[in-house]
């Protein structure tokens, strides 16, 4: 087991002025400083290396990110209520955590979000599979750098809306008879009135709920990732790649 001191060394803050000296001093090992002028020039203090998932503190940072992201998902409903939009935004934390910390962090966030949300509304728990699918999709989007702008993020969000609807429809149909929320029940009734078969009407209701919601969620996460300072973003292993900056 590595000592506390060695773990503390794994994230070291230094000023831009001494970065080159630090690089010469420490850079002989495999974790040498990679000088990036755009980072070094823009900030007063930098961390010598990005999160690699190796040190104890890095793991703690990602561990802490899970409850914070899950709480963001659950607290955003207050903001949605304030503007009275027909949105859920209940996957915001999952997508954000994936874009910052990778798929394991994203899936964990999704599971925790569903578990804690179930304490308030038990109907959320069967949809935990949707959170896992959302995390995996967001990971692929982050790998492809689709959070680099709204032009790439919003279409990706529409794609996720279709996938989320396809995933949630069987659960909603088999477990709840398509009555998960009032809005979805009413749009499902509209689908039935339009002559769709029961499963088709259920998909119609889920699709209308998820299509715009996931696009708005992706746009919001893109705004957040671009709103983070480079210094903060560099502390998370996937953030810069997700916005196409690394």
């Amino acid at each position, binding site marked *: 087991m590595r000592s506390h001191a060695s773990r503390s060394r794994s994230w070291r803050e230094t000023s831009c002025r001494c970065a080159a000296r630090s690089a010469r001093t420490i850079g002989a090992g495999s974790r040498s400083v990679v000088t990036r002028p755009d980072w070094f020039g823009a900030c007063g203090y930098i961390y010598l290396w990005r999160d690699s998932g190796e040190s104890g503190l890095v793991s703690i940072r990602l561990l802490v990110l899970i409850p914070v992201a899950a709480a963001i998902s659950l607290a955003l409903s207050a903001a949605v209520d304030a503007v009275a939009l027909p949105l859920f935004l209940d996957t915001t934390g999952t997508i954000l955590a994936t874009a910052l910390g990778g798929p394991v962090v994203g899936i964990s966030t999704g599971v925790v979000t569903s578990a804690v949300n179930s304490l308030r509304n038990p109907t959320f728990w069967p949809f935990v599979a949707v959170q896992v699918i959302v995390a995996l999709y967001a990971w692929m989007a982050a790998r492809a750098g689709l959070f680099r702008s709204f032009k790439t993020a919003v279409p990706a969000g529409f794609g996720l809306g279709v996938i989320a609807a396809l995933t949630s429809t069987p659960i909603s149909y088999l*477990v709840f008879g398509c009555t998960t929320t009032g809005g979805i029940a009413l749009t499902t009734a509209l689908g039935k009135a339009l002559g769709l078969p029961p499963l088709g009407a259920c998909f119609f209701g889920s699709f209308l709920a998820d299509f715009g919601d996931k696009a708005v969620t992706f746009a919001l996460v893109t705004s957040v990732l671009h709103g983070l300072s480079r210094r903060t973003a560099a502390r998370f292993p996937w953030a810069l790649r997700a916005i196409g900056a690394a």
Partner: protein
Amino acid sequence: MTRLHPFTLLAIAAALPALAWILPAPAGGLAMAVVALALALTTGVFRTAVFTAAPFWLFLLLLHDIPTTVAIGLRITTMVSSFVWVVAALPPPRLVEAMVAAGWSASAAYVFAATLSAVPVLRARAGRIADAQRCRGLSPRGGPVQRLRALRALAMPLILSALHEVDERGLALETRRLVPGARRTPLAPPSDHAVERVTRWALAAACAAALAWRLR
């Protein structure tokens, strides 16, 4: 009932909906719904369970015929009542103590407990941000585009402030040696009698047997 081990409470809350779905409708669902509602009655959350389940019956009537409505409605009522009951009967700190005592990583217990404690904090902050933005002239009315802009103005400060706290929390945890894989000694571990352990296994066996019987 509330003195039972947290895992026993969770096992009961999981077994009731599972059996309601597995056993033939409507008798199986009715039996499980009665048990779940009785449990809710013992903890004083009967009305909460009924009011939470009632909208589902309304929507089911809107979408399905009467037999389907009764079959699915009883299952949903069982699930809702079980969850409402277990939330009322099981304080989260007790569950965390049980998880730690059972050998779960302190990190897993932290994630669950931290989420529960962070949600009301962030909700209160979201309310304050909304008030502050209204003071600055933000209007949540108008067309969809204007509302989306208002949503961004409300959500961004909330999310960014939460993310900026990640490092502070991480440092605080490391100073308390809560690193992944660390084991903690629970101060007040809930007692776990052999009878309760047998009960949990019996509930799991009952669900498996019911499933095997239905698939036969």
